[in-house]
């Protein structure tokens, strides 16, 4: 039977999979909370299980990323620039990769967060994940943005979200400075190599928020061009 000509004209919207992707990424980050909780308990089997789950989510996000890239051939006429969209996708994906790196590194060294800074670290981790969640919320507005043709109120709403995201990222920076300072006070009591790695992990967790902010920045660029 005839495939109607008009049917093929509408390509699959890239917006929905992009949203799905960022949701998956935040889910992946969220696994870090039970992961570090298990590490604090020194329950390495549970930690390994959680890491496996996290790594699976990261892989799923990768699959989705690849699919999206393939679904965005050059001949698509879209309301947003294709390069911007792919750049946004790449940034989103980096968040999940970072989460996977953190879990892998901590589990590989059976690294413990010292008792003295544990609570502070948890709060810091939570705040960094908040940034990723906020980025996801902003991306989630994309289809409504499309509905309004990137104009007016909806844009203001997203701009607000991006501003909030920046604030969260600022928070995490301050927290990171404090955390590093407190770690320095007790670093003589722990194995020097572990201390080195702890500094690195703190930095990496902070990177989650940085990367989330970058997603916001890419989104802003996408809006600015429209």
């Amino acid at each position, binding site marked *: *039977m*005839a*495939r*109607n*000509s*008009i*049917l*093929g*004209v*509408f*390509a*699959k*919207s*890239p*917006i*929905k999979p992009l949203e799905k992707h960022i949701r998956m990424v935040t889910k992946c980050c969220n696994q870090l909370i039970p992961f570090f909780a298990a590490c604090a308990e020194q329950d390495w089997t549970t930690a390994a299980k959680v890491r496996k789950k996290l790594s699976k989510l990261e892989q799923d996000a990768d699959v989705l990323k690849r699919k999206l890239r393939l679904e965005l*051939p050059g*001949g*698509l*006429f*879209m*309301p947003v620039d294709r390069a911007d969209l792919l750049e946004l996708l790449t940034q989103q994906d980096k968040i999940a990769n970072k989460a996977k790196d953190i879990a892998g590194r901590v589990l590989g060294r059976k690294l413990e967060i010292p008792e003295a800074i544990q609570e502070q670290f948890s709060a810091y981790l939570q705040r960094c994940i908040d940034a990723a969640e906020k980025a996801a919320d902003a991306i*989630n*507005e994309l289809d*409504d943005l*499309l*509905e*309004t*043709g*990137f*104009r*007016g*109120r*909806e844009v203001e709403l997203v701009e607000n979200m991006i501003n909030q995201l920046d604030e969260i990222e600022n928070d995490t920076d301050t927290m990171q400075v404090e955390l590093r300072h407190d770690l320095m006070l007790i670093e003589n009591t722990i194995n020097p190599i572990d201390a080195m790695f702890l500094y690195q992990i703190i930095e990496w967790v902070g990177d989650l928020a940085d990367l989330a902010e970058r997603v916001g920045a890419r989104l802003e660029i996408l809006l600015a061009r*429209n």
Partner: protein
Amino acid sequence: MDILLSHGSVLVLIAAAVGFFMAWGIGANDVANAMGTSVGSKALTIKQAIIIAMVFEFAGAYLAGGEVTSTIRKGIIDASYFVDTPELLVFGMISALFAAATWLLIASILGWPVSTTHSIVGAIIGFAAFGVSPDTVAWGKVLGIVGSWIVTPLISGVIAFLIFNSAQKLIFDTDHPLKQAKRYVPFYMMLAGFVLALVTIKKGLKHVGLDIGATEGYIYAIAVSVIVALIGKFFIGRLKFDEKASKNDHYANVEKVFAVLMVVTACCMAFAHGSNDVANAIGPLAAVVGIVDNGGEIVKKTPLAWWILPLGGFGIVAGLAIFGHRVIATIGKGITHLTPSRGFAAELAAACTVVIASGTGLPISTTQTLVGAVLGVGMARGIAAINMGVVRNIVVSWVITLPVGAGLSIFFFTIMKAVFA
């Protein structure tokens, strides 16, 4: 000449059969243009879509199909060349119908999008220019038709762009999109109703036996548009909204309002399609009947035989009834990501363009106007992604259709001459 006298009724029968076949093909094929988007966006079920399409396609064909028919019948060919050999014109028109219908069938089987208008125009030019002589074609008129194929997508694109932009300004880009949608959507319905009513009154009702003056026509058209808007308002009033919907979901409610509008624009599109495309099937048939009825004389002014328009209308409806649901089913799945708020602008613009162009008597391509309109909405950033590769393929298939239609019709024309002469 004596061929026409001895075989006249046979020729008319053949022409009628092929014309019906062509109309059937048009119904089976192009119904998707009118209904696909509404089914795709879940505004209508397939069953409802078929019934609506039947009613409006037939109404369009019967009430507003006469104008384009006469262009296909008399405009493309300069009939004065056929005064001595009217049978050639009869053979030619039958061949053209055969050719176009065959090409439609082949294209349908292969799944290529072709324009029914292009195929019939190509076929008529083919037999006249190559089978008889290039002088027989009214090239000026043909240029006008071909020009309209370029101009009409542009026009519908611009209209779609404007409609979608106005919807954004009035509805989406406001504090309360839902309230605004309830307020303004009836006006879009009014516009749709007005354009259709006006063209029907101005162009279509003459041959039904009603002749209405210009001022009266406008008054009636406005009355009809108000009635359409009121009916729409009633249905919008009956919608159930998820009042507790958070800020994030309010567009889902707005879409519900647009779904009602989508049904109205789908009706328009079906009507417009019927009025424009029925001519492709029955124009040549009308020419044959006209010649045979006048005993081989080519008369400038013959009224359309009373049974011809309904035949075309029934042909389209038959095609719809038998194959329509299958076509729509494939489409409906394909464009679920086309929301009513985006689809309506494209459809309304395409319908308006087709209807206006039908009024001028130019046979335009419905598919083309719709593609133009879709691109217009895309330009207004209303569609998530348009596959330009597909658009290119569609354009290529349009271009190919002309020579293929011409070639096939020359082939059939030669055979017919051999058989009857």
